[in-house]
C-alpha cells in the first residue's frame, strides 16, 4: 500500500534539513560538548591543578571575604560550593550593567582567578544562543528554538519517508555505491537515537518556554513577568526590586549555612545566592544539590539576610511544575553521573553525524541529477565550512584555552574572536578552493588540531602522562578522546577521499 504524502514528506525533510541543518549541526555538536562543561573547564584550568576541595564553612568565609572586598555594592552574589564533580570554589557577582563576573577562588599560590567564560560555558553559550550577546541574545535563542522545532518535524518526516521502515533502519552497506552508503549511515545515525532526538528537541524548548512563546504568561500575568518567574522558578534572589532597602548589617552567612545543613545534611548545598547584601531587604537562598534527581528544580531554603529568619523552605511543586522540571532536567543532564553524560554526548554526536550526512546526501543527489545550480554550488561550499570548518573552530577554542596566558585581562574576550576568526577563515577557504580540495584540506586541519591537542598540555605543565600520574582524569579523558577522534577522522577521510584522490587534489 502506498503511503500518503510520501513525496511531500521527502521534499519537506530535504529542504528543512538543508536550510536548518547548518545551524542544527553546530547546536548538536556544541550541545554534545557542553554535556561535559564542568570537565572541559577542568581541562582548561590547569593552573588550578593543585586545588583541593575545602569544607563548606571555609568556602563560605573565603567567598564572603572576596565578594565583600571586590563587589560590596553588587545586587547579587552567587557562591557555588565545591563538590565531587567540580572541586573548585566559584563565586560570581552581578555588575551594574547586568552581566555576571565569575571568579574561581584558589587555595594555591594564586588566590583567585577571574574568568567570565571558560571552555565548558563557551560551548554552553553557543548551544543556547549561538554566542550572540546583549540585544542579540533573544535572536540567538529564537534561532535555536526554530532549529529545535525543525528537528522535531524533520525526525517525524524522516521516519515517514522510509518505505521499508524496519528493514532500512538497521542496514548499513558501506561497500555499496557511495550514495547508498551515505544514505544508510544517515538513517542509522538518525534512527538509533531517535527517541533521544525527539526528547532533546522538545525538552530544549520546554526549558525556556516563557521566552519562546510569551503569550500565555502575558495573558495571565500582564507586564508583571517577574512575578511569573518567581512563581514558576521559586526564586526570590533572582527577582531584584527596583531600589535597595536601607543599609543594615548582614546576618552571618556561616550561621545560616549551619542551619541549612542541619536540615539537609553536610555537603548537600550546591549554591548560595545573596540578594542585596548589607541592606535591609537582603535575601539569602540555599540551593540543594541536584545530582541525585532528574528534575531541574532545586530544593531551596530562603532566609531574610538581615534578620536570619526563614522565609521559605522546599517550595511545593504542583504536578505540571514537576513535569516541566523533569523535562527541563532531562535536557540539562545534571543527574545520572558520567555514564548518562556519555550516553547523551554520543547520542548528540550521532545526531550531528546524521545532520552532516544528510547535508552531504543532498549535494550528492543533486550532483547525480546534474543540477549544478547556484544553490547546489553554494550548498557544497557551505557544507565544507559548516561541518569541517565549524569543527575546526571548536577545536581552535580548545587550543586558545590552553595557549593564551591565563593572566591576560582580555583572555575572556579572545575566545569568541579565535572561534569566529577560524570559522570565517574556513568559509573564505571553502569558497576559494575546489570543493574536494576544501574537504581534504579542512579535514587534514581537523585531524591535525585533534591529534596534536594533547601536546598543548606541555605548555601548561599538564601533559597526558603527568595527568595520568596525578589522577587528573578530566585532562586524561579529553586528551584521549581527541586522539581517538583524530584517528577516526583519519580513517573516514581515507575511506571517503582515498589516498590516491587525496594526492590527486
Amino acid at each position, binding site marked *: 500500500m502506498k503511503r500518503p*504524502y510520501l513525496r*511531500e*514528506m521527502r*521534499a*519537506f525533510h530535504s*529542504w*528543512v534539513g538543508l536550510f536548518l541543518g547548518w545551524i542544527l549541526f553546530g547546536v548538536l555538536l556544541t550541545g554534545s560538548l557542553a554535556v561535559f562543561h564542568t570537565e572541559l573547564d577542568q581541562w582548561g584550568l590547569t593552573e588550578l591543578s593543585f586545588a583541593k576541595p575545602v569544607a563548606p564553612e571555609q568556602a563560605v568565609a573565603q567567598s564572603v571575604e572576596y565578594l565583600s572586598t571586590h563587589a560590596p555594592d553588587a545586587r547579587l552574589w552567587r557562591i557555588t560550593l565545591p563538590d565531587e564533580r567540580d572541586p573548585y570554589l566559584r563565586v560570581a557577582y552581578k555588575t551594574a550593567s547586568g552581566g555576571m563576573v565569575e571568579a574561581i577562588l584558589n587555595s594555591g599560590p594564586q588566590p583567585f582567578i577571574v574568568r567570565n567564560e571558560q571552555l565548558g560555558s563557551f560551548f554552553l553559550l553557543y548551544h543556547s544562543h549561538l554566542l550572540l550577546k546583549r540585544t542579540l541574545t533573544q535572536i540567538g535563542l529564537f534561532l535555536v528554538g*526554530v532549529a529545535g*522545532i*525543525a528537528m*522535531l*518535524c524533520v525526525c*517525524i*518526516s524522516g521516519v515517514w519517508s522510509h518505505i521499508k521502515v524496519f528493514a532500512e533502519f538497521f542496514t548499513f552497506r558501506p561497500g555499496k555505491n557511495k550514495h547508498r552508503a551515505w544514505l544508510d549511515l544517515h538513517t542509522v545515525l538518525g534512527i538509533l537515537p531517535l527517541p533521544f532526538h525527539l526528547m532533546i528537541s*522538545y525538552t530544549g*524548548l*520546554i526549558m525556556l*518556554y*516563557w521566552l*519562546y*512563546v510569551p*503569550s*500565555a*504568561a*502575558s*495573558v*495571565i*500575568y500582564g507586564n508583571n513577568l517577574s512575578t*511569573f518567574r518567581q*512563581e*514558576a522558578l521559586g526564586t526570590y534572589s533572582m527577582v531584584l526590586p527596583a531600589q535597595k532597602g536601607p543599609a543594615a548589617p548582614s546576618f552571618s552567612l556561616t550561621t545560616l549555612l549551619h542551619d541549612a545543613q542541619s536540615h539537609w545534611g553536610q555537603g548537600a548545598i550546591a549554591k548560595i545566592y545573596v540578594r542585596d547584601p548589607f541592606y535591609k531587604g537582603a535575601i539569602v537562598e540555599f540551593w540543594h544539590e541536584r545530582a541525585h534527581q532528574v528534575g531541574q528544580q532545586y530544593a531551596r531554603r530562603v532566609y531574610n539576610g538581615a534578620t536570619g529568619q526563614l522565609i521559605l523552605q522546599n517550595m511545593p511543586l*504542583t*504536578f*505540571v*511544575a514537576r*513535569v*516541566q522540571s523533569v*523535562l527541563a532536567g532531562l535536557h540539562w543532564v545534571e543527574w545520572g553521573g558520567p555514564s548518562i553524560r556519555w550516553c547523551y554526548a554520543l547520542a548528540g554526536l550521532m545526531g550531528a553525524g546524521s545532520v552532516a550526512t544528510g547535508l552531504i546526501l543532498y549535494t550528492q543527489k543533486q550532483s547525480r541529477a546534474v543540477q549544478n545550480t547556484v544553490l547546489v554550488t553554494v550548498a557544497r561550499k557551505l557544507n565544507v565550512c559548516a561541518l569541517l570548518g565549524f569543527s575546526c573552530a571548536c577545536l581552535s577554542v580548545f587550543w586558545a584555552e590552553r595557549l593564551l596566558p591565563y593572566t591576560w585581562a582580555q583572555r575572556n574576550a579572545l575566545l569568541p574572536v579565535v572561534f569566529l576568526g577560524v570559522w570565517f577563515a574556513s568559509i573564505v577557504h571553502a569558497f576559494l578552493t575546489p570543493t574536494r580540495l576544501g574537504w581534504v584540506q579542512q579535514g587534514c586541519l581537523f585531524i591535525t588540531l585533534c591529534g596534536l591537542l594533547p601536546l598543548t598540555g606541555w605548555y601548561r605543565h599538564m601533559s597526558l602522562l603527568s595527568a595520568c600520574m596525578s589522577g587528573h582524569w578530566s585532562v586524561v579523558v579529553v586528551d584521549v578522546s581527541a586522539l581517538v577522534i583524530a584517528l577516526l577522522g583519519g580513517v573516514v577521510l581515507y575511506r571517503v577521499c582515498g589516498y590516491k584522490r587525496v594526492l590527486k587534489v
Partner: protein
Amino acid sequence: MTNSAHTMWGRVIARVLAGTLGAYGTGYALAGALAVILPLSRVDRVSAATGVSFLIMAACSLWAGCAHRLVWVWGVMVGVMAVSGLVVLCGHITP
C-alpha cells in the same frame, strides 16, 4: 521569469510562510487561549499551555510543508488564531 515560475515561487513562499510565521502565530495564539481556559493554577496554566503549543507548532509546520492544498492549512490556522483571540478577549472581559 515566466508566469509558471512566478506561480511556483509564489507557492513556495506561501508554504514557507505557513510553516514558519503561520505555525508560530497559531501556537502563540493557542497558548494564550489555553492559558485562559485550562482548569489549573495560574502558573501551571502558563507551562501547560505553552508546552502544548510547541507540539501544535510542529504539527502545523509539518502540515504546511506537506499539504496538497495550502488553502486548507491557512484556513485552519487563521481560524484557530481568530478563535483563540476571542477566547483571550472573553477571558479578559469576564470578571
